[in-house]
């Protein structure tokens, strides 16, 4: 049975910090990794960002308030780390449609990406979205997250996030079906 957040925090507060942290990583590392990877695209970059994310989580876990949710708290740290990384490496992060295709093709060579053309097109479409909209789309589309939880990660109201997702869907649809950016 999967360890609960409460059990992790109890272990941490009882002085078994390392054990608690190992359990935290075992529980959340994959979900957090994919959240990052979908934004930075390259495995090597996602690897850097996720390590920084969990180092920050380790430093902040003592201050974590139990009325929050570990999952959304980690996503929020990961999101901040990802945006920081993207801002520092604008040229590498797939800011243009062509760059996205190039990055994904290169990842294919290393067997880190196995998608077909249609998926490359989806990621190209995603690259045309503003970062926050892209994050909202990813968390809703790929992670099936509730808008309440997405709001805890990126802020905003449920209404604004729904609107953001709706706009993202329209833009992606226009890009993949008509090849236009709106």
């Amino acid at each position: 049975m999967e360890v609960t957040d409460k059990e992790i925090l109890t272990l941490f507060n009882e002085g078994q910090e390392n054990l608690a942290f190992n359990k935290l990583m075992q529980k959340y590392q994959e979900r957090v990794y994919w959240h990052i990877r979908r934004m930075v695209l390259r495995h090597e970059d996602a690897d850097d960002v996720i390590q920084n994310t969990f180092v920050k989580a380790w430093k902040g876990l003592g201050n974590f308030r139990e009325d929050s949710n570990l999952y959304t708290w980690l996503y929020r740290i990961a999101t901040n780390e990802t945006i920081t990384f993207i801002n520092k490496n604008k040229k590498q992060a797939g800011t243009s449609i062509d760059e996205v295709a190039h990055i994904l093709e290169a990842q294919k060579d290393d067997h880190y990406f196995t998608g077909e053309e249609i998926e490359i097109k989806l990621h190209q479409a995603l690259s045309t979205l503003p970062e926050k909209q892209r994050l909202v789309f990813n968390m809703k589309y790929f992670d099936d997250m509730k808008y309440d939880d997405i709001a805890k990660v990126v802020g905003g109201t449920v209404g604004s996030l729904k609107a953001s997702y709706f706009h993202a869907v329209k833009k992606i649809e226009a890009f993949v079906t008509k090849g236009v950016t709106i």
Partner: protein
Amino acid sequence: MSQKEENSDYLNNLKNKIGNHSSFEVPKGYFDSLSNKVGSLIEKEALEGISEVNSKAGFEVPKGYFDTLQEKVNTKKSEGKVIRLFSLKSLSYAATILAIIGVSVFFLTQNQETSINPEIETRLLAANLSNEIEAFENIGVTEFFDNISTVDLALDDEIDFEEEVNIEEVIEEDNVVKEIIEEEITTEDIDIDIIDFSEDFELF
């Protein structure tokens, strides 16, 4: 409205095809080793932090100090054993009190043309001393908590500090903080002196 209803047919079909991870892959065994990598990073940072604190703690020494230190120690050793009459802590308190009294006397004699009753002067000095000590204590505690806030602010973006920190609870719960503060502000001798002075107040 469900996600399927919000998506276009194209996106729903694509989701069915690619699942939640898209077609990204990771190296074999990547997630098995990730926690060890992060653990090493944390350990490395912790060790760097410790060595930095232990080596300097923000203090500097004069250039060449350690080259001459051994010689100085050897000279002292040959002069014979020194018996310390007072502890350094007591001496530091005494020196602080004397310095404050000295400065206070200086300003009182500079600013007042008429002579003051010696006992009133003593009371003024005591009051001044009390204020100085109180200010010193308060500054010490405030700065200490300012530093804690700075550390917390590094993660401010990730953590929502909606609850106000109760300083008394923090001191009570954190033994390290408690010890530091107690060591910094417990000056029983000084408190007794102040109480003695104020008790004589009725004489005037």
